[in-house]
């Protein structure tokens, strides 16, 4: 008992610095944001006295709802596309020789060596009506000259996928690399076709990677701000752009905080799902232990 207590204290001491760090720089600011969202504002950008729900009045606004739905839609599509592209890539890389695996993973990380903003500006140039992609497609008669490729939802989604795909591939590859590919042989041996085996055996086998990739892509996409700002323009605002406008242009901190609070809640949805999934898995394990006791 004493030993356990000592161990408990030791554990707390070890986690103390990181816990304090998270408390001061993460939890308290987040709570402040939530707190400010319930305050009043004055025309000079200061936070007023008293509490009110007026900052949340924007939520019922149709234009906000459109932005919220667009944000969720783009995040969802981005996650799905990243998974659809990332899973076959991770599978292919994991099946290669070790030497090639390392080289290809290096190639996937190479884009990070260039600044993120510069890469987004590169896409602006590429997608410009006079740019390489527009010119090529026009030359091939696939689109009429002068078709706008920039400043629409498609452009935002394209650049989102481009930016987040490596983040999806990394956890997917990490899981696929640990996967025992003989299981696929076993599945085919038992009569299931190649694609069937891939779905019934490989995908459950890398479920940890799929969950990580989903979180890593979905959550940052919800809060993305630079990409829709640069390639989306005013017609494709996402939640992040609206928050920035409230804070920088309107200098209305409570309204910006209210939108941020909505975003925090949206971010927490996948977390809650994950916790629920884990809980159900744990209870499954407990029943296995119970079966053992019988």
């Amino acid at each position, binding site marked *: 008992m004493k030993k356990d207590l000592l161990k408990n204290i030791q554990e707390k001491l070890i986690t103390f610095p990181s816990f304090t760090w998270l408390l001061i720089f993460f939890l308290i600011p987040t709570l402040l944001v939530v707190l400010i969202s319930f305050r009043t504002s004055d025309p000079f950008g200061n936070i007023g006295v008293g509490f009110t729900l007026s900052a949340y009045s924007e939520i019922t606004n149709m234009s906000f709802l459109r932005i919220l739905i667009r944000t969720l839609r783009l995040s969802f599509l981005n996650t799905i596309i990243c998974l659809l592209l990332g899973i076959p890539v991770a599978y292919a890389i994991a099946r290669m020789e070790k030497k090639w695996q390392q080289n290809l993973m290096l190639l996937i990380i190479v884009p990070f060596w260039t600044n993120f903003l510069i890469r987004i500006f590169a896409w602006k140039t590429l997608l410009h009506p006079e740019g390489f992609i527009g010119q090529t497609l026009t030359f091939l008669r696939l689109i009429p000259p002068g078709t706008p490729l920039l400043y629409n939802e498609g452009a935002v989604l394209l650049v989102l996928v481009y930016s987040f795909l490596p983040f999806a591939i990394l956890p997917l590859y990490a899981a696929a690399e640990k996967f025992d590919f003989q299981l696929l042989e*076993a599945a085919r*041996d038992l009569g299931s076709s190649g694609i069937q085996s891939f779905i019934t055996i490989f995908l459950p086998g890398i479920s940890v990677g799929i969950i990580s990739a989903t979180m890593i892509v979905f959550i940052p996409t919800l809060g993305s701000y630079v990409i829709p700002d640069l390639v989306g323009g005013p017609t494709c605002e996402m939640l992040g752009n609206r928050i920035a406008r409230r804070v920088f242009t309107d200098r209305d901190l409570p309204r910006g905080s209210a939108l941020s609070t909505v975003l925090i809640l949206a971010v927490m949805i996948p977390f809650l799902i994950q916790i629920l999934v884990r809980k159900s898995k744990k209870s499954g394990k407990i029943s296995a232990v119970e079966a053992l006791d019988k």
Partner: protein
Amino acid sequence: MKDFLIFENLSKSYSNVAAVKNISLAINKGEIFSLLGPSGCGKTTLLRLCAGFETPDNGRIILDGADITALPPEKRKVNTVFQSYALFPHMTIRENIAFGPKVAGKSKKEVNYEVDKMLALIQLEYEADRKPAHISGGQKQRVAIARALINKPQVLLLDEPLAALDLKLRQRMLIELDQIHDEVGITFLFVTHDQTEAMSLSDRMAVMDKGSIEQVGTPVEIYESPVSSFTAAFIGDTNFLDGWVTKIIDKEYAKINIDGIGKIICFNDRKLKAGDPVHVSIRPEKINMSKTEPEEHRKVNILKGVVENMVYVGTSTKYWVRSGEWLFTTQKLHRRYLLDETPPKWDDDVWISWHADDCYMLEKYREADEQLLTIPDIEEPEDDEPNLDEDESSQENIITDEENKHEK
């Protein structure tokens, strides 16, 4: 039915290294056939070719009269038990076994009925809802077999299925495998590097080396009359001697001159003539060893030697006896070790003797195989005894010798 599964001139190489070289083999329906050989001999490749995980560069595979060479694994009526079992970790035991019939589109009721039957066969009814991670190695092994058998394959392929188990469990699983085979009557193609496993389980076996088949036969045939020094050395222990034939006596026996020993007599099973070079092999357990000089006999070879080394392995003691420039391996079975056996010790002078019918001539001879034998290794010789006793009793001359040996 003869020739149920036929390999026809099969070849397969990986990046210019030949794993299987022009192999032809016919396996009968319902038999347990073993592919035995050291690692890298191509036995697993042959099995994978049969399962459909690899495509041969050349040759055909015929199963029950149909050419299956080009069929993908899921279309072949064969199932594999993998060395690492390859159970699906996210499924329960029941789901693992049900995988095949489910994929085949059987109704839920049918699947449940068949799975229950399989669970009863492997005696794991109470573990059905556990995940593979929560059962023991031997249980996993049984699940892997059930998962394959439930599909009623025409041939069950077993890739070193017992390699991951400890000795006692391996012996038990060997018996269980044999019982399962008796119950289901399916053809088993069994890959192993363990000669004990192969000999105790197989109806017939093929000894493989470097991508080719050295010899095909029943365990008795292969042990008692190996054709090459590789087979002789790989299956059990043996002693190699080389020399040349000096003359033929009694029409069927050859007098052979061995450097450093003198003349010995050996049954002339290769019909050699005087002057031919010859390689002779004698199994250790067929050499009788005594501290007193045995009686002369026309067809018994008697040599004087010195005990150079001995290893006690429980049921018997293994001896290395030097005679001239040759080192002979022999063994002495213990019956009354603690009471009145007085076994020879190091540096004791002993006589070794064996009957001319008990040594045999080899077709091929390789230095490398002899090297295998010079390293003293402790193996369990008792597994080969049953065959041995049968053979010995049919040879009248030896009976008295054997009796003497055991009684001493």
